[in-house]
C-alpha cells in the first residue's frame, strides 16, 4: 500500500476555556493613553518593547541608548510600527542618549529599564522620583543595597513596577506554584533551583588591549557608576558584559533570578524566617570576564526546609523543583513534570489560593498601570529573587556559612559579608 499523507484525527480543542477572568475593579482610565519610553535599546530592551507595541492605548514615544546605531534602529522600528496606524497627535518616536531627558518628558508615563545591570538602580530610583511607572529588567541591580533602595522607592512613591521575570506570565510556572502553595505536594521539604552559568562563555577570544571608543558611542555614559576602564569591544559583544563583575554580579544572580523567583512564588517560607547559607563557586578568568562561573549553594531553615541552588546539573537540573512529602513538581520553560503525574490534572478548589493570572507580561503591566494595582511580578518579588542570588555569591566569596534574616534584611554579625552588600558608585553617580 502506498503511503499517502495521512488524514489525521482532528484534535478537538477541548472546551477548556480558562475560567472567566475576574473583572478589574477600576475600569476607569481604561482608555487613557500610556506613553512609554525605552531606556536601553539593546536586544532585550527592544524585544520587551515589541511586546508593548501591540498593546491597546500604549504609545512608545521615546527610546534611549548610549549607542547611536541602536537607538536609531529602535526609533525606526517604532516609527515603522506606528507608521500609518498612528493617531493624529502622535509626533513620532524620539531617540536620546541621556535617560534623564526621557524621564523629564511629561508624556512618558512608564519606562522600560533595560540597560546593563549596573545601571538598573539609578534609573529605577530617578524614574520613581519623576513619578514614572516602570517595567524593569531583572535582576534589580548589582548589590543587595541597590535592590532595597529600588524596593523602598517604588513603595514609597506608589509606583507600579513590573520585574522582567516573565516566567510568572507562563501558566506552567503558575500551576507548579499553586500546587506547592496549596499543599498538593504535602509539606514542602526541599526546593531545588538550577540555572545556566558555565554554558555562557565569551564569544570574543582575542587580545584585550584597549581600543578607541567607536563613533556614536557614549562610553562615559555606558560606564556610569561602574569603575572606569579603557574600552574594548569584549565589554559589550554578547554575552560579554554579563560575565564581567563591573556590570553584572553573574549568572548566579542574572539567570538564577528567574527560577529563584519561582521558588519564592511557590514557597514563601523561603523569605519568612532567618536561614543559614553556604555556597561554593568558581570564578571566570577569560579575557575580561571575571564573575562567577559555576556555583552550588544551600539555604537551610530552622524548620528543616532547604533550598538547593546551583548551576545546571551541579546538582540541580535547570528549573525549579518543589519536593514535598506527598510528591514533587519540576517546572522549566516549556516543560512541567510531577510525581505522581496525576498532580498535573489537579482541579483547584474554591478554598485554594490562586495566584495572579497573567498571560502576557507587558499587557499585565499595562493593566496594572491603569488600575494602579500590583502586576504579577511586583517589586518585592523582584527584590527577593535578585538578592538571594547575590547572597549566594557573597557566601561563596567569604567561604563560610552565613546567617541572614530576611525580615530585618541583615547578616547576623558578619562585618565582612555586610560590606559586600553594597557597591560604591563612581562619581558623580549615586542612589
Amino acid at each position: 500500500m502506498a503511503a499517502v499523507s495521512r488524514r489525521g484525527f482532528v484534535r478537538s480543542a477541548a472546551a477548556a476555556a480558562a475560567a472567566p477572568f475576574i473583572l478589574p475593579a477600576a475600569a476607569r482610565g481604561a482608555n487613557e493613553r500610556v506613553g512609554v519610553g525605552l531606556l536601553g535599546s539593546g536586544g532585550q530592551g527592544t524585544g520587551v518593547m515589541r511586546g508593548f507595541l501591540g498593546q491597546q492605548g500604549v504609545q512608545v514615544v521615546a527610546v534611549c541608548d548610549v549607542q547611536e546605531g541602536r537607538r536609531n534602529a529602535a526609533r525606526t522600528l517604532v516609527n515603522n510600527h506606528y507608521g500609518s496606524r498612528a493617531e493624529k497627535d502622535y509626533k513620532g518616536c524620539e531617540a536620546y542618549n541621556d535617560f534623564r531627558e526621557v524621564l523629564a518628558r511629561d508624556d512618558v508615563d512608564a519606562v522600560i529599564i533595560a540597560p546593563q545591570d549596573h545601571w538598573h538602580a539609578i534609573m529605577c530610583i530617578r524614574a520613581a522620583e519623576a513619578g514614572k511607572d516602570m517595567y524593569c529588567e531583572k535582576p534589580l541591580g548589582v548589590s543587595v543595597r541597590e535592590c532595597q533602595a529600588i524596593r523602598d522607592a517604588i513603595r514609597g512613591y506608589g509606583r507600579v513596577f513590573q520585574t522582567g521575570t516573565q516566567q510568572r506570565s507562563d501558566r506552567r510556572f503558575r500551576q507548579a506554584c499553586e500546587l506547592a502553595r496549596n499543599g498538593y505536594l504535602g509539606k514542602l521539604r526541599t526546593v531545588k533551583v538550577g540555572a545556566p552559568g558555565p554554558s555562557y562563555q565569551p564569544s570574543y577570544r582575542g587580545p584585550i588591549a584597549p581600543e578607541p571608543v567607536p563613533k556614536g558611542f557614549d562610553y562615559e555614559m555606558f560606564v556610569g557608576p561602574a569603575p572606569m576602564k579603557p574600552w574594548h569591544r569584549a565589554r559589550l559583544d554578547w554575552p560579554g558584559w554579563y560575565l564581567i563583575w563591573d556590570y553584572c554580579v553573574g549568572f548566579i544572580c542574572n539567570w538564577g533570578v528567574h527560577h529563584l523567583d519561582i521558588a519564592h512564588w511557590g514557597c514563601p517560607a523561603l523569605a519568612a524566617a532567618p536561614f543559614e547559607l553556604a555556597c561554593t563557586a568558581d570564578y571566570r578568568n577569560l579575557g575580561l570576564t571575571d564573575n562567577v562561573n559555576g556555583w552550588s549553594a544551600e539555604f537551610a531553615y530552622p524548620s528543616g526546609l532547604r533550598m538547593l541552588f546551583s548551576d545546571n546539573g551541579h546538582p540541580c537540573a535547570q528549573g525549579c523543583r518543589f519536593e514535598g512529602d506527598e510528591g514533587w513538581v519540576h517546572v522549566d520553560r516549556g516543560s512541567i513534570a510531577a510525581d505522581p503525574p496525576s498532580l498535573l490534572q489537579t482541579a483547584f478548589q474554591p478554598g485554594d489560593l490562586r495566584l495572579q493570572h497573567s498571560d502576557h507580561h507587558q499587557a499585565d503591566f499595562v493593566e496594572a498601570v491603569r488600575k494602579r494595582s500590583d502586576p504579577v511580578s511586583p517589586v518585592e518579588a523582584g527584590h527577593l529573587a535578585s538578592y538571594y542570588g547575590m547572597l549566594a555569591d557573597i557566601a561563596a566569596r567569604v567561604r563560610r556559612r552565613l546567617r541572614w534574616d530576611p525580615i530585618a534584611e541583615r547578616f547576623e554579625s558578619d562585618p565582612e559579608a555586610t560590606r559586600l552588600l553594597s557597591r560604591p558608585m563612581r562619581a558623580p553617580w549615586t542612589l
Partner: protein
Amino acid sequence: MVSPAPVFSPEGACYISPGQRPGNRRPTQPVALKGRNIILALLAAAAFGATMEPKQAFEQLRSYDYGQDISPLVAIEALVDQSSNAAAQRKELTAQLVAILQEPKTPIAAKQFICRMLERIGTDEHVPLLATLLAEPQIADDARRALEQIPGDAASAALRDALAKAQGDFRTGVINSIGERRDRKAVEPLAKLIGTPDAKAAIRALGKIGTAEAAAALTRGRDASPTELAEALCHAQLRCADALAAAGDAKAADAIYLDALGQKEHVLFRIAALAGLVKTRREKAAPMAIEALTDPNPQLRGAARALARQFAGKEFAASLLSLLKKADAQAQVAIIETLAERRDAAALEPVTKLTESLDDPVRLAAIRALGQLGNRTTLDLLARLAAEGTGAAQQTAKEAIATLRERSTSPEMVVALAGAVNKGETALAVELIDSLAARRFRDAVPMLNSFASRQGGEVRLACLKALGALAEPNHFPFLIDHILTAKDEAEAKAAEDAATKLASRITRRTDRVGPLMEAMKGADAGKVPALLRLLGRDSGPDILAVMRKWAGGTHEAARDAAVRALADWPSDEAADDLLKLAKEAKEPTHRAIALRGYLRLAGTAKRLEQAAPLIKAREDKLAFLAALAEAREPAALAIATRYLSDDQVRAEAILACLKLADALVGTDKEAVKAAMQKVLDTRPEKALADRAQALSEGRRTIVPLFDGKTLSGWASNGIGKWSVEGAAIVGNGTHKPGYGILFSEKQYKDFTLRFKYKVLAGNAGFYIRAEKLPTSEGVRGLQVEIDPEKDNAGLFEVGGRAWVAKPDGKLPKDHFKPRDWNDVEVVAQGRHLTVTMNGHKTVDLPNDPGRTEGFFALGMHGGGVHVMFKDIEVLAAP
C-alpha cells in the same frame, strides 16, 4: 596538603568534590587555617586551584596594566576569598597589596584593582594612605570608594576633610559617599552646601543621613532656596521621614509626612506622604486613606486603594460602610470597589441594596462587587439581573456570575444545576453546564448524560456539548445513542459533534469502531450518515466494506457521506472503489470528488492512466497534472506531455513536465530528452526554455536544498529547536536570548530560490546572502519577512538597515495565506532582488547595496515561534 574542612550540612551529599567539575572550573574550597604557616597556606591555596602561584601573582600585579591577562587579579581575589577565615593570612595579604599601592611605578590599573580590594578588606589602618590618595586625580575616586566601605569614624573624618579641597565630579563623589555612610557629623557642613552648586548632591546626602538634624537642615533649606531645588528638598525630606519612622521617631516623621500630604500640586509627594502615614499611624490613618480614595487624582486614588488593603480590621470596614451612606456617587463607587477587594463580609447587605441605586455607575459597581462578595443566594439575584436586565447591567451581572461561580465548588454547581433544571431555569442551567465543562468536572458526566436524554432544547444541547468535552472512552456508546435518539437537526448535530470530539480522545481502534459498527446494525437510515462520518475517521477493510455498501445504496444522504468518506481515504485500498465511483456514480458531484480522491491516492502512472478518460474539466486537468508530477516515472512524464498541446493547461503541463524531468534526468535520460524536445516545441518563455534545454542535455535544473527527511545541509546556531515533521522543517522557538538560526552549509551568490512556509506563531524569516556573527542575533543580512499577521514577503535587514522593502499596501489581501502554506520565490541576480509570494510580486529592488553572496538561513526571532518550511530548492546555475 591541607584537606578542606567541611562547611556544609552534615550529609554534604549534594556537593561534587573539587576534582569532578568539567571545563575551566577550578572550585575553591574554604580552608580552615588555625595558626598555620603562611607559606604553607599559600601553597595550599595553589593546590586548590588558584590560577597561579601567589608569588607570581603579586609580581605580575606590580606591573599590571589594562589589556594584559587578568589572571593575577583573579588569583589575588581568590586569595582574598581564601583568607576570609584566616586573620593572619588576611593581614599579610593586605600588607602586600598596600605596599604595591604605595609604589610610584605601579600602573593605575593595578592601583585601581587594589583599591577595589580595599573596599572589602581595608581597615582604619589604611585610612591615612587612602586619604592621601584622594589628592591624586588619577586614583582619587577609586580611593574614595575604598573609604566609603571602611566603617568607623576615621574614614568618615577623612571624607569630611576631603570636602575642603575636592573639586568637580570627584567632589560630588565625596558628598555621595558621606551620604551613603549616613555620617551624622556631616550634617552641618552639608547644610552649608545647600546654597552652592553642590546643593543637589548635598540635599540627596542629607536625605540618606535621615536624622532629625538632617531633616531640620532640609526644612531651613526649603525656606531659603530657589524653586528649582524645592522638589529635591522634598524628596530628601521624605527620605528622612522614612528613616526617622524606621528608627522609632514617629512624631518627627509624622510632621514631615503631613506637610508633604498638603502639597496639592505634587501628587507624587502626597502619595509618598500617605504611604508614610499609614506606616506610622496605622489604623489611625484610615480617615486619610478614605479621603484619598475619593480624591480627583486617579494616581492618589489608586495608591489609597492599595494602602487600604493593609487595613485588615473590621473597624476600617465599618468606617467605610458608614461613609457609604453619606457619600456622593463617585465616592460610593470607590468605596464599593475597596470593600469588594477586601471581601468584607459585612459589606454584602449594603452593597446588595445598592444594586438598585438610581445612579448607574453605583449600580454597576455594586453588581460587579457582588461577584466578589456574594454567596450562593446572591446567585439568584444575579441570575435574575442577567436574564431580565439590559445593556451594561446585564453584561455586568453575567460577569459577576462568572466571578462568583469561580468561587463555588463544582459539587455545589451540580446541586445548583439540578435545581435549575427542576425549576425550568434554562439560562442558568446552561451557564452551569458550560462552567462544569470548563472546569473538567468529570463527576458530572452521569447527570449530564441523563439530562441529555430526558431534557430537551437548550439544556440538551448544552449537555451534549459538555459531554463532548468531558466524556471518557467508555461513554462512547452513550453518545452514539444520543445521535440515534436525536429529535431534530440541531440535536443530531450536537450529538455528532460531541461524539466526534470524544472519538479523537479514544486511543484504541476497537473502542472507536466497535460501538459504531454495532450501532450500524439496524440503524435508521436517517441516522446512518452521521455514523458513516464517524466511521470515516478510521480506515481498514471492514469499514471500507461498509462504505462500499452505502456508496452504492439508495439512501441519498448516506450515499453522500460514504462517497465523501471514501474520497478522503488515507490509503490506496480505496482506489478501486473511487475509480468505479468516478465513472459510475449518479451525482456529478460524487463523480468529481471521487475522481479527485482517486487522483490523490493513485500514486503510479499506470493507475493515473486509468483515470485519463475521465479528465475533462480544466480543474480536473490541473489536479491530474499535479498528481502526475508526483509520480516519478517515465510513464508519468509521457502522459504529461500529452497536455502540452492543450491550450487550457499548457503552462501547467510545461511545469509538470519540467518537475518530472528534474526528478528523472538522472535515471531516464532518453525519456527526459524526448519529453523536453516536446516542451521546447511549444516555444515556452526563455527561463523555461533554458531549463528544458538543460534537462534535455542531461543536467538538473532544480537543486533541492532540503531532502524532505533530514536536516542534512543545514546547521543550527544552537538556539531553538529544529526538526523534520511531515516532509517539512519545523522550527520551535525558545526563550533563550538571541535568534534561532539554521544556516545552509553552502553560500550562494546569484540564484532563483523557491520555498514554501507556514507560520503559526511568532516572527521568523528566510535569510538570503547572510553572514554569521557572534552577536546575540547570530546573523546579519536580508531576510524575507515571515509573520502571522503582517508584512510578509517584505525584505528586512537584520543587524543592518532594518526595513529595506516593506510590502506594498496595494497588494491584494490574498497575497498572504495565514496559517497556511505560502509559496515564495526570490530571484537574486547581482544587485537586482525580487520577491514573489503566491504569484504576487512583493519586492523589486534594482540596485541593492547589500551583500552579493552569503548563506541561506531559516530564522526564528525570539521565543514562542512555530514555523514550517518545505520544498526549499534553487534553480541550478545554467
